[in-house]
Structure formats: structure tokens, C-alpha cells
């Protein structure tokens, strides 16, 4: 084959071919001058225009801002400036990430029209690295839900089957990545909101170690559980993005001071396929009754692949994981009910005056919150306020905090024996839109396997071992 032909074969072309490249490949093509950021960004904007009316992954598309960034990156590259490896690779942001000058609603009507006057720390990092921001992605209102059906702006559809859910709360970010509308996206994960959408859309989702990615500028839901992380189509891409957004932030008092480890290097070493010496624990409690047979079959195939690659796979019991869901649905609503007190119609967002009686601050707050919040948010605020109220605090919130200790101890004991824990990410494949929206408990059960990781603060990743199911691992 002549050299010219080979160039013709591998050189990314505008349009469909460009959007199907991984972020790492796009970065390489951009660095090598084979393609411009404007071409890459425009290809993704074209894709959004073509498919998003059906998918509805985006709440806001910032085409002009994205192209401005792309142009400045292209100019800087031509001038020979030293750029971040991901410079020019476009990205989508979950709408819970505060973004200066762009509408940020967190999927809630109570923030409709709010244009933030500042950037979240992760947005500052993304902008400094020169990633064009394509827009803001759809989500369950204020990150409460597992399907995006609780968005105040209509649900997102799973790109693989438009009648099915894309997961939640970060269904928009996962769907955007799965539908080739963006090579990378940011999500936030409080009980599985990055990993579960990753699992049901066949993409990769990472919940970083608590404190390793700044929470400054994320609209807080449950502060002791929330963590931002990457959504991508490959583990290497997720590692690149994770590496970019991680690190200490003096603006977040819970931010770890440890340096970001070499995640990209780790992803490359893993891809080499030799797992000799790695001890993998299969969690007994996450996999039996309630898990679809197809999910378990794919999971067991993944375990065989791990064994074939040299890993030692053993079963590990984590007895308190069975109670993690109950603890989570007390701790999370309790923290959320407190965090959401700021949506009171006084300083920003919606303000609604009562239709009758005196117009006092307290009555305006109640009217605003009554009209501005959707059903699931109200349900969780009520539950959280109940769990924290006099007479119930010890029995519910206090007990849930003790169960959290027991879950952490289960992880600590397991990590004495193994390096990583694995389980299916979700008990089922993507369910149909509407199937669980009126049954809160059934919706909550979707998170049964992802929640223990958040309670303990350890990292977790969901990877698609055999589409359409996913396998999750957690490590120290």
C-alpha cells in the first residue's frame, strides 16, 4: 500500500467518521494537524442538530461559544503554543454544573432562565484546557431520579431504543456520548447517576473517589455523596477527562490534597491485557434474586475474561450492602432537604407570589417551592425533612448513618482480601419509559448496586462488558 493511500484510509474526515472517533483519537488527530477543532466541533454540532430532536440529550446547545473556543484552539496550535492534550476535543456538561453565561437549570423549573455569574472549578479547568463546550445535558430534576423522566424539561431517550430510558440522573450526558453527539461528557454521581446511565447506554461512567474532584459549582444535592466524573465511550477517554478535572481545590473544603494519580497510564496498562496478580472480588450480595438472567450471563462472561487475563477471581461477602439502599434513601433526602432550602425565590431563580392572603417572605417561599419543584423533588424533601424532624431523627437519620459505618467496614474488610470488587452495575437492562415513573420504590431499587460505593466514598466505574449490560467495579 502506498503511503498516500494509507493516509487516505486513516485520516479522519469531516462528518460521520469524525464523530465516531474516540476522544483520544481525536486528540491525536488534532495534535498531528490532521483535522481542526472547528471541523471536529462543527461535526458534533451537526450531529446534535440531526439526532437530538429524537434523543433530547441537550437542554441547551452553545454552538457559537463552542466554535469560538475551537477557533482559538486552532489559532494557538498553528502558532505552536503548548496545549493540553485534549485541547479542541468538544465536551458536554450535565446541567447541574454551574457554567458562566450559559443557562444552568439542573433540570428544574425553579432555575429556569438562570444564567450563572461564575464557573464551577471543573468548568474552569475544562475551559483552560481548551475543550469547546457543546452545551448542557438533560437530567432528572436536581439529580433526583434514575431515568431522566423527572426532568422539568421532558425526558431523554435512550439512543439505542428511543422507547427506553437512558438512565439517570445523568441520562443526557450518557445519551449524548452514546449517540455520538459528544465524545466526552461530565456527569455527577450521588447514588449511581454517572454509572447507571453508562450501563444502560453501553458507555463508560466513572464515580471518582469522594473529594478527588472539586464540588465547587456543582448544584449540591447530597453533599457527603455527590461527586463529578467523566462519561465517555472508552476507558482511556474517561481516564483523560478524569485526569483533567481531578485535583485539589481550595474552594471545596472536602477536596483531597493528594495529587491526581496517573489514570491515563493506568488505563493503558489495563488495555495491555495482563491482569496477573490482580485480586478481584465478586460481591455475593449484588447478583442473585432480582437480577435479570441476561445481565448475570454477561457479568459471568466478563468474569471469565478477567480470569483469562490472569486475574484471581474470588467471591467476597459484604453483608451490609443489603441495607445500603435503605440507608441511602434516608441520608440522601435528609441532606437534599437541607441543601435545597436555598431555592426560596429570594435571590435567584423563580419567585411565585401566593394567589391569596398577605405576600410575606415565608408565604412566597412556600408558593415558589410548591410551584417550582417537581413531584420527585417534593417527595424527597418531604422524606428528608421527616427523617430529620424531632422524634424521628435517631430512628431514621441516626440509624442510617450507623449503617453507613457498617457498609464502610464491609469495604475495608473486602479490600483486605482483594484489590477490586465487581458486580453488575444495574439489576436490569434499560426499562421502558413510563414503566417505573409512578412507583418510586421500584425506581429507587435501580440503584441497589451503585449506592454502596457512594456511602463509602470509594471510586467506581461502569464498563460495558457485553452490551447491553454492564459490570461495575470499585476499588480503594
Amino acid at each position, binding site marked *: 500500500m502506498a503511503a498516500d493511500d494509507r493516509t487516505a484510509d486513516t485520516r479522519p474526515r469531516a462528518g460521520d467518521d469524525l464523530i465516531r472517533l474516540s476522544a483520544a483519537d481525536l486528540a491525536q488527530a488534532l495534535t498531528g494537524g490532521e483535522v481542526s477543532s472547528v471541523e471536529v466541533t462543527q461535526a458534533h454540532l451537526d450531529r446534535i442538530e440531526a439526532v437530538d430532536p429524537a434523543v433530547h440529550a441537550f437542554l441547551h446547545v452553545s454552538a457559537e461559544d463552542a466554535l469560538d473556543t475551537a477557533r482559538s484552539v486552532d489559532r494557538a496550535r498553528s502558532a505552536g503554543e503548548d496545549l493540553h492534550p485534549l485541547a479542541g476535543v468538544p465536551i458536554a456538561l450535565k446541567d447541574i454544573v454551574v457554567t458562566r453565561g450559559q443557562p444552568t437549570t439542573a433540570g428544574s423549573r425553579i432555575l429556569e432562565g438562570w444564567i450563572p455569574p461564575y464557573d464551577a472549578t471543573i468548568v474552569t479547568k475544562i475551559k483552560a484546557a481548551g475543550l469547546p463546550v457543546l452545551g448542557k445535558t438533560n437530567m432528572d430534576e436536581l439529580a433526583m431520579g434514575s431515568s431522566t423522566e423527572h426532568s422539568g424539561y421532558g425526558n431523554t431517550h435512550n439512543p439505542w431504543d428511543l422507547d427506553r430510558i437512558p438512565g439517570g440522573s445523568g441520562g443526557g450526558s450518557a445519551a449524548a456520548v452514546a449517540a455520538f453527539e459528544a465524545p466526552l461528557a461530565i456527569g455527577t454521581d450521588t447514588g449511581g447517576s454517572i454509572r447507571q446511565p453508562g450501563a444502560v447506554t453501553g458507555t463508560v461512567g466513572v464515580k471518582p473517589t469522594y473529594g478527588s474532584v472539586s464540588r465547587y459549582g456543582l448544584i449540591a444535592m447530597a453533599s457527603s455523596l455527590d461527586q463529578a466524573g467523566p462519561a465517555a465511550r472508552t476507558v482511556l477517554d474517561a481516564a483523560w477527562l478524569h485526569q483533567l478535572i481531578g485535583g485539589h481545590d481550595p474552594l471545596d473544603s472536602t477536596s483531597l490534597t493528594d495529587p491526581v494519580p496517573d489514570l491515563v497510564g493506568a488505563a493503558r496498562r489495563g488495555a495491555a491485557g495482563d491482569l496477573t496478580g490482580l485480586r478481584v472480588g465478586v460481591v455475593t450480595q449484588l447478583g442473585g434474586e432480582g437480577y435479570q438472567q441476561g445481565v448475570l450471563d454477561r457479568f459471568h462472561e466478563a468474569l471469565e475474561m478477567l480470569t483469562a487475563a490472569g486475574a484471581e477471581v474470588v467471591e467476597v461477602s459484604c453483608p451490609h450492602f443489603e441495607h445500603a439502599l435503605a440507608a441511602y434513601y434516608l441520608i440522601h433526602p435528609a441532606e437534599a432537604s437541607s441543601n435545597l432550602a436555598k431555592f426560596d425565590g429570594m435571590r435567584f431563580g423563580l419567585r411565585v407570589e401566593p394567589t391569596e392572603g398577605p405576600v410575606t417572605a415565608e408565604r412566597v417561599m412556600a408558593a415558589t417551592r410548591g410551584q417550582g419543584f417537581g413531584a420527585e423533588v417534593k417527595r424527597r424533601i418531604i422524606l428528608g425533612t421527616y427523617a430529620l424532624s424531632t422524634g424521628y431523627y435517631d430512628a431514621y437519620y441516626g440509624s*442510617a448513618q450507623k449503617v453507613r459505618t457498617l457498609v464502610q467496614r464491609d469495604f475495608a474488610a473486602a479490600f483486605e482480601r482483594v484489590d477490586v470488587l465487581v458486580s453488575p452495575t444495574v439489576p436490569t437492562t434499560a426499562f421502558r419509559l413510563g414503566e417505573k415513573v409512578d412507583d418510586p420504590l421500584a425506581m429507587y431499587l435501580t440503584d441497589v448496586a451503585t449506592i454502596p460505593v457512594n456511602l463509602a466514598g470509594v471510586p467506581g466505574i461502569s464498563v460495558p462488558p457485553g452490551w447491553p449490560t454492564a459490570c461495575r467495579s470499585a476499588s480503594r
Partner: protein
Amino acid sequence: MSTPWRDEVARVAALARIDLVPEELDRLAGDLDVIVHAVAEVSRIATPDVPATSHPLPLSNVFRDDVPVTPLDRDEALAAAPEAEAGMFVVPQILGEDA
């Protein structure tokens, strides 16, 4: 119709400053009944000898250097306010609400 759970939801909604219409009170009463029973297992598991964990990181007294930075511009901070005047947020009457 008044039921124990409906009354409880109404009490809690008042604490949380959320106006609920009667249909919401009915639905949330049913939801709360089901959810609270489902999560009540925590009080059975949590024995007195187990300490509570409120946070995944054992942090306390986190300080950073006291470095002056340019604060958020006042007009920008007020730009999203439902009502602002003379560089301040305008809020409804807050005193004498019970009068």
C-alpha cells in the same frame, strides 16, 4: 380526608416551606407510608455499639490561606435576582408575618 400520614406530610411540608395541593398531600401520604416502611430496617441493623458516619472523609477544621481575591461583581450577583434595587436584593415583608 385526614389520615395519620396525610397529617404528617402536611406538618413536614410546612416545615419545608412547600405549598402542596390536596391531591399532592394524598399521593405523598401514600408514598411516605410505603417508603418509610421500606427504609425502617436501618433502625434494626444499627445497634448502639456502632458509631455514626456523617461523611466519607474524616476531615475537620479545613483551612486555606487567607488570600484576597476579586469578589463576584455586585451587579452580576444581582442580575438573576427576582427583584433588586439600589444594589440590594428586594424581598417580601419578613417582619410581623403573624400579625
